[in-house]
């Protein structure tokens, strides 16, 4: 295939296309920021920052980030674009700890093309699948016309073309610079880096990445993103539900989590699991998006039947206004209106905050403790990994004194013996490996030496 072959369709499309609006799930600057904020306030993160990571101000500890290299440049650019009316735009690279998490949840969708990887359809276990290089050309053209896409994206198909990876895969993708591997790497450096400044920077980075991960989890409660609906909900209608939620709730009006965190063996279970109680499972099964209303193809649950009159609403398992219907010239027309949006948001936002809370607790789960000359696993049983010890001098500089592979330990059981350290002010232990479920984990403990 050469460019010549699709030259004709491209020109024709230019004539007929309206501007395809850019797409987002929950609005990042308002809704995601609010959801993440609510999750943080309901979490034990503040206690972890104070007690485990020895940041006296906990959630409010000012931290200065230091991102380097091409990744640092990209993230720095994204952070530099954040709106500054909500407290999460860094000033001179500094923010309080909790605002780094919020900032991460906002920049996960900067640039917008990242959202192509936030879809997960539990029915197919796949990601966004409504385009491709050729069939997604109209979408790329739309973005180019509105100024949010680039010529390069248009030519190469690298932009938002109606395809993407499943969000579950995106979380662990090596090319996701705000993915899980970056979180664990930064979480470890937050304890092992040589200087206090480097450790602060690493902690800020870990929190930033944690926020981005929360964004992906929160997106599993947006009906269009779990029902493979990009073209209708976003490209055609510009994401009316998302816009309505952003305007009505803003950042500050977003509700708190619906319940306490759930304890999951794997982060992915929050999004989907075999009990079909994951955020995506539940949202896909019980809510509609504009492109997956009754009568659309392929037919999707929930099954609903209109009443006998001219118009009305069908109720769902969770909401009174699941979808609006009306009969017009012998046709049955389905729609989502403001009543539906109000009902949807009242259920889905607390659920999203709940998922984010569970994800946050999962990322910072477990711990270590140092006592009686031994290192103990915390509340989380540990599998195989590397246990390293660091000695901190009076200037706060840390140096590794021992590192070895360990086979793991049961919860609150002995992991290893403490090394003998002389002339140090503080002993630090950090474990990086997997837990008993095989999930990556980083835990640490510090002890002041007499």
């Amino acid at each position, binding site marked *: 295939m050469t460019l010549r072959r699709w030259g004709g369709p491209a020109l024709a499309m230019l004539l007929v296309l309206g501007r395809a609006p850019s797409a987002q799930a929950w609005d990042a600057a308002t809704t995601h920021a609010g959801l993440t904020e609510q999750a943080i306030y309901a979490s034990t993160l503040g206690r972890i920052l104070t007690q485990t990571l020895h940041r006296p101000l906990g959630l409010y500890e000012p931290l200065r980030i230091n991102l380097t290299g091409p990744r640092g440049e990209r993230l720095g650019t994204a952070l530099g674009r954040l709106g500054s009316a909500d407290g999460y735009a860094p000033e001179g690279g500094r*923010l309080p700890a909790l605002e780094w998490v919020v900032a991460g949840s906002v920049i996960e969708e900067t640039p917008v093309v990242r959202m192509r990887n936030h879809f997960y359809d539990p029915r197919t276990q796949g990601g966004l699948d409504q385009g491709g290089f050729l069939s997604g050309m109209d979408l790329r053209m739309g973005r180019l016309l509105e100024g949010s896409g680039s010529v390069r994206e248009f030519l190469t198909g690298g932009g938002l073309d109606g395809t993407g990876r499943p969000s579950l895969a995106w979380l662990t993708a090596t090319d996701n610079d705000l993915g899980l591997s970056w979180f664990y790497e930064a979480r470890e450096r937050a304890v092992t880096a040589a200087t206090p400044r480097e450790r602060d920077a690493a902690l800020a980075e870990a929190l930033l990445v944690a926020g981005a991960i929360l964004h992906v989890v929160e997106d599993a409660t947006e009906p269009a993103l779990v029902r493979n609906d990009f073209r209708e909900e976003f490209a055609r209608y510009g994401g009316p539900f998302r816009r309505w939620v952003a305007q009505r709730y803003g950042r500050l009006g977003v509700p708190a989590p619906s319940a306490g965190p759930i304890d999951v063996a794997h982060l992915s279970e929050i999004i989907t699991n075999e009990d079909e109680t994951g955020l995506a499972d539940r949202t896909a099964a019980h809510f509609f998006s504009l492109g997956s209303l009754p009568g659309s193809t392929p037919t999707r649950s929930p099954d609903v039947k209109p009443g006998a009159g001219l118009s009305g609403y069908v109720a769902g398992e969770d909401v009174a206004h699941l979808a609006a219907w009306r009969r017009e010239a012998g046709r049955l027309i389905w729609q989502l209106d403001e009543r539906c949006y109000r009902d949807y948001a009242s259920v889905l936002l607390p659920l999203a905050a709940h998922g984010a809370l569970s994800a946050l607790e999962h990322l910072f789960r477990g711990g270590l403790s140092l006592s009686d000359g031994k290192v103990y696993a915390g509340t989380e049983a540990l599998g195989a990994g590397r246990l390293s010890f660091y000695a901190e001098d009076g200037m706060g500089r840390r140096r590794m004194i021992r590192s070895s592979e360990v086979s793991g330990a049961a919860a609150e059981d002995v992991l290893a013996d403490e090394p003998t350290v002389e002339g140090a002010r503080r002993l630090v232990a950090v474990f990086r490996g997997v837990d008993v479920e095989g999930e990556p984990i980083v835990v640490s403990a510090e002890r002041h030496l007499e």
Partner: protein
Amino acid sequence: MNLSTPDRAIKLLLVFLALSSGSGCAAGLAEAPFASSPGSVEPGDLRGPFYGQVLDTDSSKPLSGATVLVCWDFVQGDGPSAPAGTVRRVVTTNADGRYIVPRVSVRGRHGRLARATLIIYQRGYLAYRSDRRYSDLGPRGDFTQTGNMVRLERFPNEGSHVRHLRFIGAGGPLGQAVAWELQLASDEAARMRPSWQEEETGAAGEEKPIDATRLLSADELKAVTGYKGDFTIGKLGDRETSSTYDSVHFRATGGQPEKFDAAIRVFRAADAEGAELRYDELLHDYPEVEEKDEIGDRSLRSREKEIFGVVALDKAHALVVVFTCGVEQCHDHDTAVALVKRMWPRLGRVTAGRPRRVAPSGGEAEPAPEAAPETPKESAPETPKEAP
């Protein structure tokens, strides 16, 4: 595909597109959600300028020296989209409490001006936002671009700095101004407990029921025993779940007899001594007991007809775990022991109070597909009559 020699028409088209819209220069601005002046129905201009006066609510006197921050947020793409940059300006109120924030130029800016937010901050007072009210965090409808009258309330003695910092944001351009609140908010946050933690502890301090479902999932059971069928998960029904007892019954579906089933009982005592007493009772009461001490602090194997039993003691959590498994499920005692060993690292979760997995309304543990179980099918070893 040969991208180096694109068709000439395409080239021209793309150059046109790049010049006409791809540059990303500000293409416009959104409609302001506020009026231009008090009493007017004309929408204001997001670009400004903004005029107003700040007064003390109680005295109605002008507040001089209050910080007034205006943030203009640009986004990329039609509709709310990715952040594309921000411009902010900080001024202070004069002796009359008046502020003037000049109009911002959007020329040459990347993206589209989507939002303008004005925040007023004065130490000792509750802050003001042009988009939301502090009282209920609801949308504010009385902000105007010009002639805006702001009455700041004094920060109440019992006021929450956590809420206040959430309202204005703990970082950003006001970071220096609000730095003194960080310690207060941190102290307050350390005293606060999320509502879900309070629920788990119980309103009157009563202990929450223990939860044996956290010890083993049906999938794990099947993975270890190699069983291909499914289970209905429920309670054994011999005793109510309480703070000292819980059970899980993995009942094989398809009308299978109980020798395909498995069950977990967990007893919690007040302390390690109480747990050991309970263990000793079981040691005495159960049939064909062989004390092996292969799990936890102490453990035994027991068997009655087609049911293997394993009992283990954990003094640290004051727990006794009884696992029973039919011979068609576990096949031998070693399998039953392996399953209990698998549960052991999770004993802390039995009392931790968190449900496993997402429940729609946030309440339930692993759902049982069927209604509450009937009379327990399991017969051996016998369940003790009393909890410790």
